[in-house]
């Protein structure tokens, strides 16, 4: 099994290196699809070979020395927490590659695009697969340069400024995070995440835990992003090409929350417990703030950009994930991890659909799209309209779809937080989060009303509006299907994450 995991990381890296060779753009794009397809296959094999009876145990483990001088080891492994994220990453990258073969955003060509996409995938997969703090930091950094160029070279609008903001913001966060890692490593004498998690904070003084937890928390909160460190996100999402937005929202935000669960919680438990109430407060504010921002953008005459709106909705949704983590209970953490994957599927789908709408109309400006009565996608392009409505309804947390369980469990976790945390405070956060769900439903329904409904006969910005095309259906259907599956059968994911979460919390 460990060979599969190594191949999973090596294959995209190899593919990225291959893009240095002189090959044609079309060939490069097809090769990219093949490589990402192969990676997806490998991730499915990994999931199939995974011992589902014992998801709390690290499986497919490789542990060899890489840099003895720094005590850095190539330590890889998957458990019930990382497995769904690995599969999600492989799936979303494959769908992006598939989509880009037919719909390459305007930019310098397919070869560089594919190379960057594969490098990005390597970094994202590595983040979820490595079990060494220094390697985790390395993987965290690998994604920056490819995403920078994807935004700056293939994006639209204020793309260079947005890309700069994205990379500098994230790097500042991760540099601070590195200092936290080094403090942990120097004090505990190892960078091994499994050993550190098993030690559960013993060997680290309280002060060390506090300082390290704060540094790591800041770094991961920028990535997640937690309010008020989110301000890089709307610009980056708005400027990024469709594939970039999908991966940014679908996977890269999860790197932050995954880090919180994998690093912060088990390695510096005392520090985490100290900062959890603040994290919960920021999460609750983020939920309300994100929803209010979306409501403001969705209003008529606000000149709201649809991609920007979904970006702000991500701030709200990631707020639920952070709230679940902050509760420090198995329930809340399970909810957070479920919401992580659900948000990846749903927001990925939303960005795909909105990207397609933007390509067709030439703009994502909600007022231009909607005109006087609404864009009437139901009438003019019924399949795209239906998919948009489906994704929006899933995003607002309709029971039976993926968005429901994660947020419910996260709020339930906040209702009864771990011992030692202030219950009144967390109940307040839960109430705020509940208010957030209402606001979320409000703005998403407004979006559906303004984009999908309306009078098909009114004069539209574009005369010709083709409905769902074959390649679009191919790259979107898996996401829609999985959204439904995860909503109807949540045990599929919760069964994986629950034992692993209990193991991390030191309960079993």
């Amino acid at each position, binding site marked *: 099994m460990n060979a599969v995991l190594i191949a999973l990381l090596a294959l995209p890296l190899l593919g990225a290196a291959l893009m240095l060779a002189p090959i044609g753009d079309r060939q490069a794009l097809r090769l990219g699809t093949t490589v990402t397809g192969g990676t997806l296959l490998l991730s499915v094999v990994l999931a199939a070979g995974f011992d589902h009876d014992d998801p709390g145990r690290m499986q497919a483990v490789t542990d060899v020395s890489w840099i003895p*001088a*720094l005590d850095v080891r190539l330590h890889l492994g998957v458990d019930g927490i990382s497995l769904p994220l690995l599969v999600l990453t492989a799936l979303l990258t494959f769908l992006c590659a598939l989509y880009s073969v037919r719909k390459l955003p305007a930019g310098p060509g397919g070869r560089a695009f594919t190379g960057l996409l594969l490098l990005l995938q390597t970094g994202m997969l590595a983040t979820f697969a490595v079990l060494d703090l220094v390697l985790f930091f390395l993987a965290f*950094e690998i994604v920056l340069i490819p995403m920078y160029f994807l935004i700056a070279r293939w994006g639209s609008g204020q793309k260079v400024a947005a890309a700069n903001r994205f990379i500098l913001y994230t790097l500042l966060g991760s540099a601070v995070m590195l200092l936290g890692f080094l*403090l942990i490593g*120097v004090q505990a004498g190892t960078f091994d995440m499994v050993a550190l998690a098993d030690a559960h904070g013993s060997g680290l003084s309280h002060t060390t835990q506090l*300082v390290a937890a704060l540094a790591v928390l800041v770094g991961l909160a920028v990535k997640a992003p937690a309010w008020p460190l989110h301000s890089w996100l709307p610009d980056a999402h708005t400027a990024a090409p469709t594939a970039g937005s999908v991966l940014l929202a679908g996977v890269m935000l999860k790197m932050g929350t995954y880090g919180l669960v994998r690093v912060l919680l088990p390695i510096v438990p005392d520090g985490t417990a100290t900062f959890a109430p603040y994290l919960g407060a920021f999460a609750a504010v983020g939920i309300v703030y994100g929803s209010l921002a979306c409501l403001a953008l969705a209003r008529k005459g606000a000149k709201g950009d649809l991609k920007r709106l979904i970006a702000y909705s991500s701030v709200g949704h990631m707020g639920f994930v952070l709230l679940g983590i902050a509760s420090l209970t198995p329930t809340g953490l399970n909810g957070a991890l479920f919401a992580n994957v659900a948000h990846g599927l749903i927001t990925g789908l939303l960005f795909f659909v909105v990207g397609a709408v933007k390509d067709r109309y030439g703009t994502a400006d909600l007022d231009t799209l909607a005109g006087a009565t609404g864009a009437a996608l139901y009438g003019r392009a019924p399949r795209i309209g239906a998919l948009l409505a489906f994704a929006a309804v899933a995003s607002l947390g309709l029971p039976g779809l993926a968005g429901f369980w994660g947020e419910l469990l996260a709020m339930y976790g906040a209702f009864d937080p771990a011992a030692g945390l202030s219950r009144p405070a967390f109940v307040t956060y839960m109430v705020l989060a509940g208010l957030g769900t209402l606001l979320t439903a409000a703005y998403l329904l407004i979006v559906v009303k303004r984009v999908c409904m309306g009078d098909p006969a009114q004069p539209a910005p574009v005369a010709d509006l083709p409905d769902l095309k074959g390649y679009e259906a191919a790259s979107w259907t898996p996401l829609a299907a999985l959204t439904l599956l995860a909503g109807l059968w949540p045990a599929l994911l919760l069964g994986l994450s629950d034992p692993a979460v209990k193991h991390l919390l030191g309960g079993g």
Partner: protein
Amino acid sequence: MATAHDLGQPLMTPLTPLAVADPGGLIQSVDWVAVAPPLIAALAALAVLVTDLFLPEARKRLLGWLSAAGLLAALAALLPLALGDTRSTFCFQSPGGGCSYTADHFALAFQLLALGGALLTVLLSLHTVETEELPGGEYWFLLLSSACGAALLPAARDLATLVIALEVATLPAFALVGLRRDGRGAESALKFFLSSVTATAVMLLGVSFVYAAAGTIQLQGIADGLAHAPGQLKPLAEAGAVLTLVGFAFKTAAVPFHFWVPDTYVGAPLPVAGYLSVVGKAAGLSGLALVTTLAFRPYGHTWGLVLAVLAALTMTFGNAAALRQRTDTPHGAVRLLAWSSVGQAGYLLVPLAAAGYAGTAEPLGATVAYALIYGLVNLGAFGAVALVGGSGRLDGFRGLAGRNRWAAFGLAFFLLCLAGLPPGVVGLFGKVVVFRSAVDAGLGWLAVVMAVNVVVALAYYLKWTALLFAPAAGEGAGEATGEAPGEAVAPRRTPAPLGAALGLAAVGAVVLSVAPQLVLQVVSGSLF
């Protein structure tokens, strides 16, 4: 030598006893293997100077290759030393006396940097000497002499050898900077010369104070002498220590002794600028490390704090100035590299400061590792700038990827290594070890300052990297600036030595990125 010994033996024995009790003690036995690396460089320098007299004008090119061969031989001489035990020579026979020359791991690592850096500089220079019609014999002689001094310095273990080695490394550099026969070269050489001589004078004053207070010039002896110095000599010793540090801080171009850097780099021939930024800096840094950790050990906390503040100021000033470089300034590329080298000098000082706090020489390993990495990629970046040529404006690099793919990839890789961001993995790990030394020594504030600086530095490295892959001027609609068409100089066929130097640096950086242990082993090993 062996024959003289054999012949002399039968003649010497029947003589009457000499006036000295132990005649053998007067004859210094020199460990030639230990001193081979700087010695070979010096011999090669002389050989070049003499050969220059007999070579016809048309064949002066050979001198460059001769220099390269000399440096290769000097590098090869490092091998037996690296594999064997630490060797010392020029030792004092008197009790308690140390040795003036020690080839330990610290010395070997910096010798590798000095000689390897000089070799890369030679490869970069072959083309420049020809196109700019620099006087060949003098150029190679000066370069080799300077490299010899830089290789001698890290092995020096007394103040006299240290000062002499530093001067041997610096004096030829003045001439090298001034070799370009235009106004700019002369001006920058003069600027460099005057400020450097002032620093040397100050340092000599400091050295004499220290000698007066400690009663010895041996670095180890000074540490003992200072610890037991009588109370009334304390101020003298402290003043001496500060003045000595000033001299070395100047050579490393630490703030506030950094102002000569940009003008000197711009005025010098490009490879010489690269040489100064790597080998010149390494010489100053190794001297600083030796003086602080060996000689001034008793004052560890004081100079630790001074160096920490100096490091913070240096990286902040350097990076802020680099950030302010505009893309249309003439020689903007070299200016940017000059300021970035000031910023990098700040990172290099961090482990030195940590060594002061920790009270051991252990953190120095981070400086050594980072200096080796920095040397390799910085020379690579200078090489890529030399390859592109033109007016040296940053705008001239716009769209380089379209004209010369590999040069663009190479430069981008070097810049990302300097920034410390993957795919420049080796640069990242270089920064990690520096961070670790600071965190380990409890210098949390310095680590945070450095973290902010790394982010600031990324802004300008990335701006340049992005320019390489931007659409060429005039090609991208709306992105073209007001620059004249044809400003972006398309490179001619890549000259072979230049390509070799770039390839060498790139392959080295890639190999180190895959296997960082190769360079990072100095962090965990013992240095002295």
